[in-house]
């Protein structure tokens, strides 16, 4: 079995690893167009922000037995002969995996051939932006989606003043509702990122972006107007192509020997453009090629903005059907916003922005399509809600007699009261009679509080110095 993987990014490299881990006999060759060693695209925005270096982007070395060829660009696929032609030679295959990824979308804008215009997609893009940003004062990012905001935050982190221009009615309009978009804009403003929504860019003049009715001076323009599947090879080879390369649940294209995964693939009408689905697809395709029966049935997508000081999670759809239940919380002044939509006791969509301690729980409930908690407040407040009972020392009077004061020795309030009644007057008396405080010592304050309280409610006329319980 000769497997050829075209594309050695996040999806392709994963497919190679999955194939090798499943079957040591399968011969895997991978062809990567980019000349440098494969890198972790997830960390590009951290690289842009200057938080990591290029070394930190390295992905795990290719598994032994895999033949990975970098800088070898595929120019054609011939499904009839089962051959792939590269700039250098031809490769025969029994199974072909296309992981060609996506291409940046370029907006219709005048002046894109002017200097200082940068796409934000590849490591090379990132290098160019970083090089230009060094010494620059102002940047403008075109596109207020996930990628654009990560780029903007990264550039702001480098000390640049950043403007984001977004054609939609609010930021990240594919994931957020208007209120969330506005809270997010406010949060970004506090981090040095100005946003302009509902704004159409007309022209880049090399030192400013001209909008309808406004001019934003900037030293560089970063384009983050989305990504489209790179279907060029597949289309030329006659494979069925829609928005992406159309695949079935086996990740198989219209040719039974050709598979497609990752940003280039269209499955059940969805093109994900995210790593997690691409990896699920890579596992499926590896299983299929090595004789398994795995099926990919789509991914539940959770979008997380990866940027310092911005905590944003968005998932599912905020559409509310007739039987929808909505749970929400907003504290815009502190940048906190939460809106959850539930149908039949399950979370079908959510936006959580800012300090939402239950975000981990919400993500898991959505991911698993699991029943939501009966008390919906826990979806907003998480661990903060219904937290621990008050500390014993705070309210000795209110503490029930059966309350355990000293866990290490299972000493209840009643036992401590009994020591008092028998004439014990100090913490040491209580310790001697009950062993309270002799374990971890953590209840010492509580026992002190109880002894103080007892001395107030049951004052003793006898001199405690001379009356000690035997």
């Amino acid at each position: 079995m000769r497997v050829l993987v075209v594309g050695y990014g996040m999806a392709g490299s994963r497919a190679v690893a999955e194939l090798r881990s499943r079957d040591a006999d399968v011969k895997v060759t991978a062809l990567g167009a980019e000349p440098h060693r494969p890198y972790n695209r997830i960390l590009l925005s951290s690289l842009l922000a200057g938080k990591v270096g290029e070394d930190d982007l390295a992905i795990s070395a290719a598994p032994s037995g895999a033949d990975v060829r970098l800088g070898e660009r595929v120019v054609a696929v011939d499904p009839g002969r089962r051959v792939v032609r590269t700039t250098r030679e031809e490769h025969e295959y029994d199974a072909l995996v296309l992981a060609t990824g996506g291409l940046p979308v370029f907006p219709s804008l005048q002046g894109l051939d002017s200097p200082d215009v940068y796409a934000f997609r590849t490591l090379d893009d990132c290098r160019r932006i970083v090089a230009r940003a060094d010494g620059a004062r102002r940047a403008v990012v075109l596109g207020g989606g996930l990628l654009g905001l990560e780029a903007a935050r990264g550039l702001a982190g480098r000390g640049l003043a950043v403007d984001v221009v977004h054609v939609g009615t609010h930021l990240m309009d594919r994931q957020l509702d208007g209120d969330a978009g506005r809270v997010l804009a406010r949060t970004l403003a506090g981090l040095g990122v100005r946003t302009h929504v509902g704004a159409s860019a007309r022209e880049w003049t090399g030192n400013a972006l001209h909008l309808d009715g406004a001019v934003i001076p900037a030293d560089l323009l970063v384009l983050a107007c989305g990504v489209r599947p790179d279907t060029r090879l597949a289309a030329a080879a006659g494979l069925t192509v829609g928005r992406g390369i159309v695949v079935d649940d086996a990740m198989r294209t219209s040719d039974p020997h050709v598979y497609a995964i990752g940003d280039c693939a269209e499955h059940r009408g969805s093109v994900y453009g995210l790593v997690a689905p691409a990896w699920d697809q890579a596992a499926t395709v590896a299983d299929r090629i090595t004789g398994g029966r795995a099926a990919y049935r789509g991914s539940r997508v959770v979008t997380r903005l990866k940027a310092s000081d911005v905590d944003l999670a968005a998932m599912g759809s905020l559409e509310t059907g007739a039987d929808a239940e909505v749970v929400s919380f907003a504290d815009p002044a502190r940048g906190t916003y939460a809106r959850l939509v539930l149908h039949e006791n399950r979370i079908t969509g959510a936006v959580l922005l800012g300090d939402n301690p239950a975000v981990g729980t919400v993500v898991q409930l959505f991911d698993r399509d699991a029943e939501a908690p009966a008390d919906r407040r826990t979806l907003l407040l998480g661990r903060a809600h219904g937290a621990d009972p008050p500390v014993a020392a705070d309210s000795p009077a209110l503490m029930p007699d059966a309350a355990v004061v000293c866990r290490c020795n299972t000493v209840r309030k009643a036992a401590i009261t009994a020591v008092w009644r028998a004439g014990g007057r100090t913490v040491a008396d209580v310790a001697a009679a009950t062993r309270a405080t002799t374990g971890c010592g953590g209840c010492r304050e509580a026992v002190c509080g109880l002894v103080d309280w007892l001395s107030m409610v049951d004052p003793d006329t006898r001199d405690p110095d001379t009356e000690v319980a035997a």
Partner: protein
Amino acid sequence: MRDFQPGNSREPTPKRQLATVIGMSDTHCPYCALQCAMRLRAGPDGVDVEARDFPTNQGGLCQKGWTSADLLRHPERLTTPLVHDGETLRPATWPEALDRVVAGITAIQERHGRDAVAVFGGGGLTNEKAYALGRFARVALRTSTIDYNGRFCMSSAAAAGNRAFGVDRGLPFPVEDIAAADAVLLVGANPAETMPPFVRHLGGDGLVVVDPRRTATARLAALHLQPTPGTDLALGNGLLHIAITEGHLDRAYVDARTTGFDAVRAAVAQWWPARVERLTGVPVADLYATVERLANAQKAMVLTARGAEQHAKGTDTVTAFVNLALALGLPGRRGSGYGCLTGQGNGQGGREHGQKADQLPGYRRIDDPAARAHVARVWGVAADDIPGAGPSAYELLSSDAVRALLVFGSNPVVSAPRAAGVRRWLGALDLLVVADFVLSETAALADVVLPTAQWAEEDGTMTNLEGRVIRRRRATPPPAGVRTDLAVLAELSGRLGAPTSSDPRTVFAELGRASSGGVADYAGITYERIDAEGGVFWPCPDESHPGTPRLFLDRFATPDGRARFTPVEHRPAAEEPDADFPLYLTTGRVLTQYQSGAQTRRIAALPGDPYVELHPDLASRIGVDDGAPVTVATRRGSATAPARVSTTIRADTVFVPFHYGGANLLTNPALDPISRMPEFKVCAARVAPA
């Protein structure tokens, strides 16, 4: 005002003053690895316990310690050997019982080979006993089939420690260092229940606790991470990912003192925070906050315990946290470090001196020719006559090749995974011999039960969680008819043609010679030094050596002196929830019980009954109220106990304490490929009203 000295029995046990003190000894608690110091006063009517000041417990004891002497004169105490005659266990004389043991061993070995006779030890045995047991197996029985319940306890941390540092000592520093640390990350540990006086060393401000339950320990923490059971490895990788991307890598340390970082960096690059959040359920913000606390501390500690370790990927999970500690430059830096909290009383020493399937005394590998030659000289045998490595604990307890088993200091019917299968296996043996001081669930199945002495009735040494070798001292003689484990082993060895000493001091001296030059070198430790110095930390190669409270300050115990990073990948639990078994089951401990409960369940003053902890949402979904009986079922069995409904547990998880016969009927014996640790801490379960 006059202070009462804590020390006497608490209510409702009547206060007792021993009129005449016959024996008095400064010793340590018989239970957990903290080995709290205590003073025993023995009189004609019993033994009184006093807490004693020591660095580990600072004068504290929990109720297990306070009541430990209640078992000495317990009505269920065994004082005569028992032999199985047809249907019942009946009292027998020592000669009759030992004859039967020796005749059985001899016949089985003649018929089925030497390895058909197996030995199973325990992490509560003194160093002397652990050593003597290993020697008994290899020299008297000449069987390779020996392992112990510490496999269920410390093996994953041990394997990870050896892999990273070249040595496995639970804490490579004294316990006081923890108190002085500004930040402590505690992964899968609940010391507020398992070793309460240890909490004296945990400051609250810098404490981060990782546990699927909001335990008593988690409540002490500034930050509690409550991950999905079985996802700690992803959590560890995710924390390291953040440490790198946020610029907290200690580059100078990594360059100077470690190897292998690049492969780990590449591996954790794939564990970005959102991915970790989705898998673990721990919010991204909490992941960042955890790393910030550790990275910004002057002194920081990463500590793991059974919650991280008792998994089919326990070794790799511990490694993920070791990697984190190394990247932050903690191990080998005074006041910082990585450590694991040992469980059983002598969990540390018990794994160093030869009752482990693959080891010889001194933490030597049994497949190392030089180690075999050294130990053979001490034992007076040919190196070739020492058997090789045998099967690990669960593999031993399910092996078709084993026909006879001798058990010392363990109760596997309760403590082994998939316990119903272990019970059946024990029942099918030709000979089961159990040495114990009560009729444990395992002893009740035995052909021969040998009554042994308790901690207060014997001398010896223990090695506590710090690697400090301490003294156990006899306060009172054992009851008539009872023998020490060492005496039993010496008698059996003698009858099998390999005489040895039953005197603890003599055995310890021999242990010292056998361990000399090994990783856990006790050669310079004597009873006198322990008495004079308040314990001695190993390694201590000779009598002029001061012992080693802090390891790794100059170099790690690897050939090149550097700590080793090892890349580890998260993988699912061996059994994840599905439609039939939709919940996670996890198991653990409670404050009032110890291990299989054979001791603590017999002490009237210790409260505690089995229960099933579950979240109110789950309880209401299945229609049970707090206290109502519920049945937890897994693919291996079911157990019923009252529901304990609590918001402190994740809604997708149920918890059952393992000190009772039920929990391990449920657990999954899937084993870690390196440590052979069973997956006690996670499996798929369903729960329904009983």
